[in-house]
């Protein structure tokens, strides 16, 4: 296992270096940020001073090696837009995104596994119909539309929850609910399909013949074997959330890393873009490692 973890860490480090190279040069292709930060009327002298302050007058290769040199000392540079260390800006946003992702995915996993298993046990039954309903909504309704409609109904008309913001636990209800729908619908269907296969297998029939209760058959015997494909999809969906839920963050005023990344790209705030992508990539590498470990726990036949 340790050897496997080591090789995965090395592969991840190589990917990260490739990512740094790619993002550094691609982001510079978008152009000079000077015009975005100085007034339209700024003189050429002011523009030159601005470029000098931010090291933009150096040749691109020099800028890259300077950046790498700083990176070795864990100095991610300063945000042009916010005049503070880029890593501080990113960590602040990533904290929000991580909380949102963890809360949402925890609820998604619990509810999709329970409802998906019940739907598979009675195909065409009431749970199956509920599962299909949610899956359809998740697949067909765009996040921003659900979010705005939810605000109008639950905040403006009914006054049950705040429209947006982050002050109390009630502020989390709408954003988490909106984020919940899409991965819930998808994972629900994966659980359902995987469970239908598992429930029709020979060992389940044997368990039934032995008189084991349905609850134990579903949640102890069948579910464990049905979870492998589910874990893969959970990993994909969690990675998407870690990248930031831009629409939800924008609408509900959650200061997460997704909106930060988009804003930073548009504002050519290169240091923040780099720091955000590196942090997110690292988080996704770690999560993939965890998923690999989970595989081996769920299925002892898998050995690394």
């Amino acid at each position, binding site marked *: 296992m340790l050897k496997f973890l080591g090789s995965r860490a090395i592969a991840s480090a190589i990917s990260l270096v490739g990512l740094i190279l790619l993002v550094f040069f691609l982001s510079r292709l*978008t152009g000079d940020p000077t015009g975005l930060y100085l007034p*339209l009327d700024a003189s050429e002298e002011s523009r030159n001073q601005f470029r000098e302050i931010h090291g933009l007058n150096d040749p691109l290769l020099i800028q890259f090696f300077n950046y790498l040199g700083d990176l070795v000392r864990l100095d991610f540079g300063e945000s042009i837009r916010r005049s503070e260390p880029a890593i501080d800006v990113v960590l602040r946003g990533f904290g929000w995104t991580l909380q949102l992702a963890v809360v949402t995915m925890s609820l998604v996993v619990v509810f999709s596994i329970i409802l998906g298993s019940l739907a598979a046990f009675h195909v065409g039954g009431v749970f199956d119909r509920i599962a299909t309903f949610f899956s359809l909504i998740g697949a067909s309704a765009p996040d921003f539309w659900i979010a705005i409609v939810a605000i109008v109904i639950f905040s403006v008309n009914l006054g049950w929850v705040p429209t947006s913001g982050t002050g109390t636990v009630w502020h989390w209800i709408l954003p988490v609910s909106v984020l919940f729908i899409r991965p819930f619908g998808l994972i629900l269907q994966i659980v359902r399909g995987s469970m239908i296969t598992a429930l029709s297998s020979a060992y389940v029939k044997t368990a039934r013949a032995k008189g084991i209760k349905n609850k134990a058959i579903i949640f102890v015997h069948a579910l464990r074997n049905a979870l492998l494909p589910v874990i893969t999809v959970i990993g994909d969906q969690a990675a998407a959330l870690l990248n930031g839920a831009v629409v939800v963050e924008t609408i509900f005023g959650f200061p997460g890393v997704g909106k930060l990344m988009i804003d930073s790209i548009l504002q050519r705030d290169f240091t923040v873009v780099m720091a955000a992508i590196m942090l997110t990539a690292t988080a996704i590498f770690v999560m993939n490692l965890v998923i690999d470990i989970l595989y081996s726990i769920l299925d002892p036949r898998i050995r690394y």
Partner: protein
Amino acid sequence: MNRKIHLLLASALATNVAFGVAAQENSVTVVLSEELEIVEPCSATKSNVGRVLFQNISETVTEMDPNTGLQPRLAESWEDMGNGTWRFTLRPDVTFSDGTDMRTDDVAHSLVRMKSPDIACEIGAKFFGGIEITTNIIDEYTIDVTASPAQPILPMLMSTVTVTPSDTPLDSFVDHPIGTGPYTFDEYIRGESITLNANPNYWGEQPTVQSATYVFRGDSAVRAAMVAAGEADIAPNIALQDATDDALDFSYPNSETLFLRIEHAQEPLNDRRVREALSLAVDREAFVGTILANGTLLATGMTPPSTIGYNRDLAPYPFDPERARELLAEAAADGVAIETEITLIGRTNNFANVLETMEALLAMYQDVGFNMKLEMVEVAEWLERYAKPFPEDRGPQLIQAQHDNANGDPVFSMYFKYHSDGQQSGLLDPNVDAMIVDATAATGDERAAKWSELFTYLHEESIADVMLFHMVGFSRVNERLDFTPSIRTNSELQLSQIQFN
């Protein structure tokens, strides 16, 4: 179990009640469209920064009021000493929120700081570009400020200068602004909110609003919903489609002028008949009340009607496609290459319905015979095409732009937009250059007359740009407030002017 349910319901009810009374007496919540990247007084002319800091935290030397003209603020009076020097006399007994007295050395330091090469101050770059400022402190309350070249409107320019204490660093932005204003900057929770509280030591009258919280929401519909739900009191900037409640929504001229910039050196745009055809081909009236808001004015000049010298006698070009076709035919007969493809460039997200506006303009131009294509570009790419140095091999272009001038004087616009050396000018016209220099140097009625003359020349003789509209903005205001948004709301929001109903 029942007890748990009761607890849950009670808790929900309590929170629900709490939302209803979120707006506390004597405090207001303002919802802005984006978070402040910096809280720096020397960049308080940026609209979102200005709505928090300008005249709330940081006060200016003088104050420009669109209705009453130039007014005293930190300076009680000013006097022209000749040779580009103006003497300002400050109010006594003004203190900063850190308790120190405000004196002339603070004003001198603020003027140096806004031009500091180590920080990119918006005010220094925008209003004092190409102007050298020197100061001479006469005493604690009297200071001479000299501009080179001489600026007859220096007192007006001083209405942009925010005063900070003399120990404010010259090489970095501040993250906790100290000012003399009616409020103190108390807390900034990054990504969430900013809180201001009334300054108990303010030199002027204590404001009615005792505290203000600013929150940030990127989506206009959410900002409008927050006011409707009672979670916020003012949303200074909402989209046309969200301004649906007559009791809450106000429209006001937002000081932005929409136009198409023409670069006169490029064929066929170098021909006056082609430029006239561009103006005649647009059915301006058709936009108002459809894809642009009711109340939008047809423009004849670059600045809004509230600026001095605005020529109200000028009429917008009528919609006359027949005449436009005739002009193009005449130009073609004289060998002008009217078949050359012209690129119409729009800036994405510049204002509500910008794409629809640009598509309608394209259709109108194609209808009269222009060979034209539309490109919508992001702000960064737009800037590269809009400001000098212009890209090589660009070909003829019409660039959609909005220009904001709420300062009351065309000088803030004309040099950059129309002088041959202007950063965004599409003109190379010595007549215009001379007229700008003359008007800039003039004062009083003569100044207004000279600006008026320039507006006429640009509109009727040169046909410098395709002037389109003076735009309106929308704000949503909670009914508990006695506050009417105005042209100033586009760039500032003076909390001390807000009362409660």
